[in-house]
């Protein structure tokens, strides 16, 4: 690092370091996503009393690569009546908005490496990390909505409209359920939020930290709105296959469909990372202060728990009706999230005064 910063100046050296970090992060996340898809198919198979894909490689381990090859060699079909520019733009927006937030999540404590020195295991750390995540998430709606509109198909349009309405509605309760954590932490920087959850043998998580204000209600509302925000069962109305064929991506094929597919799973992954970071203490866990690298294991274990929860729900729950979805979001989830904010603020006020 020192050599590089002598050559091109400290600013550029830091930029190069972050670019390397971002690329490594993207590759790792995409690999995890590929195996999440495999895990989903195997676990769903288990839940439904069948095997799932187990032919390619030992136990189906190479199935994601087979899928990728298939996606690449499928025929690219563009509907004749589509709005071409937006039709191609939509999957790009979807995957970009899904991948951008992953850079702010801290996945480990401060570690040291030979030749590099001490550094924090987080790609980018800045003042508004949480707002950045929320902002990028809210831009992600365009991918889905524009895909539905530009395909020029009734099913796609219905799917796109449903997705836009659903994501706007649940974004509110999603954002409000996080306010409680921000109130007790006093910062939007995700690394500091995780650092504050240290103690109690690494188990002093915001979820049940009784020395501050336990965020159980915030956690539950966040989890529900996050599932709705990623369009997963039981909130997968935008792609309800019994009503809308495949919803907003009905007219997409080959790699463009693969981009939407990946975006959905990357979104699942980032949403799980946010839940881990804010409510379950991020990389905090037993023995982190003795051996810092174990933080990565705790972090991935907690994220895996959420990913499993997603798959479990998909194998268990039926789908909502659209009006039920809307009234649940606006008339139940939003008031509960606001109540949590008021409650947390009140307790904090009396504790400070």
């Amino acid at each position, binding site marked *: 690092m020192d050599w590089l910063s002598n*050559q*091109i*100046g400290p*600013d*550029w050296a830091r*930029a190069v370091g972050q670019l390397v970090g971002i690329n490594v992060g993207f590759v790792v996340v995409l690999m995890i996503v590929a195996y999440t898809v495999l895990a989903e198919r195997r676990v769903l198979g288990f839940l439904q009393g069948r095997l799932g894909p187990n032919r390619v490689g030992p136990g189906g381990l190479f199935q994601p690569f087979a899928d990728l090859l298939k996606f690449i060699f499928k025929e690219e079909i563009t509907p004749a009546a589509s*709005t071409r*520019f*937006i039709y191609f*733009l939509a999957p790009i927006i979807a995957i970009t908005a899904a991948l951008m937030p992953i850079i702010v999540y801290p996945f480990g404590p401060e570690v040291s490496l030979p030749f590099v020195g001490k550094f924090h295991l987080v790609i980018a750390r*800045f*003042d*508004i990390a949480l*707002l*950045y995540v*929320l*902002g*990028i*998430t*809210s*831009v992600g*709606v*365009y991918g889905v*909505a*524009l895909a*539905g*509109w530009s395909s020029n198909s009734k099913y796609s*349009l219905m799917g*796109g*409209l449903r997705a*836009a*309405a659903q994501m*706007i509605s649940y*974004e509110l309760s999603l954002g409000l359920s996080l306010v409680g954590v921000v109130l007790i932490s006093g*910062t*939007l920087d995700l690394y500091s939020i995780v650092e504050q959850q240290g103690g109690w043998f690494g188990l002093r998580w915001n979820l049940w930290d009784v020395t501050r204000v336990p965020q159980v209600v915030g956690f539950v509302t966040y989890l529900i709105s996050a599932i709705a925000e990623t369009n997963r069962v039981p909130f997968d109305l935008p792609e309800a296959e019994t009503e809308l064929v495949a919803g907003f991506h009905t007219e997409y094929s080959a790699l463009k469909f693969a981009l939407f597919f990946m975006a959905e799973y990357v979104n699942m992954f980032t949403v799980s990372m946010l839940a881990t970071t804010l409510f379950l203490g991020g990389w905090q866990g037993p023995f982190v202060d003795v051996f810092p690298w174990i933080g990565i294991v705790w972090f991935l274990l907690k994220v895996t728990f959420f990913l499993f929860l997603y798959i479990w729900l998909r194998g268990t729950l039926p789908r909502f009706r659209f009006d039920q979805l809307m009234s649940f979001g606006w008339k139940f989830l939003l008031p509960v999230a606001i109540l949590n904010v008021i409650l947390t603020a009140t307790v904090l006020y009396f504790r400070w005064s």
Partner: protein
Amino acid sequence: MELPSISQLLFVLFGAMALGCAVAMVAQRNPLYSAISLVGVFVSLACLYLTLQAPFIAAVQVIVYAGAIMVLVVFVIMLLNVEEEVRRPVRLHYLIPVGVLLAAILVGEAAFMLSLGSGGAARVTPMAPAASDIGLTASIGTGMFTKYLLPFEVTSVLILMALVGAISLARQGRTPLLAAPGNVSEEPAALTAGGELALKPGDTAATGRAFARQQLERGEAAAPSRAASEEDEG
């Protein structure tokens, strides 16, 4: 090796992006393309704020404008399926020289400021990078809830009023469908054994009013406005 600083590069990049998207927004004839270009403008403006040490404003810009307001605009365009606008001949001819004149004045002003060089630009003290914490979330929050509390609260009340006004405007046209004491003058249509309304093909206003009355009795609908019910009578 001498490289331009990163923030200079980013400023030029996102400034060009903002200008390009702004021109595209005005020039496009398809309203959806214009809306997307406007989103592009907002996002590149947010990036410009970031290079100017104002991260909070940048985040709010993206969340509020790009993520909420423009999504609604795109939603409406998609719902109404707005057609491409037809180019009409320009009617207000005298506006063209005025526009050209104003543009020339603006360009001249900018050139004048730049040509002054050290004498002109130096009078504006540039913000020292990273030394200022004005743009940080904590300082904005502190300012908003202490020094600028009254403007903040007044603005909130204003927005609340706009919200209530919009809802009452939107409801007025639809009141006949909802329960209104003035609407429910006729005998309700037949109810089935389970207390549900039996709808037949050919049922019209009477059925709707009966349904509305049912809603009112069950407490499912709010009280209507008087104006709409009078309109219904006449």
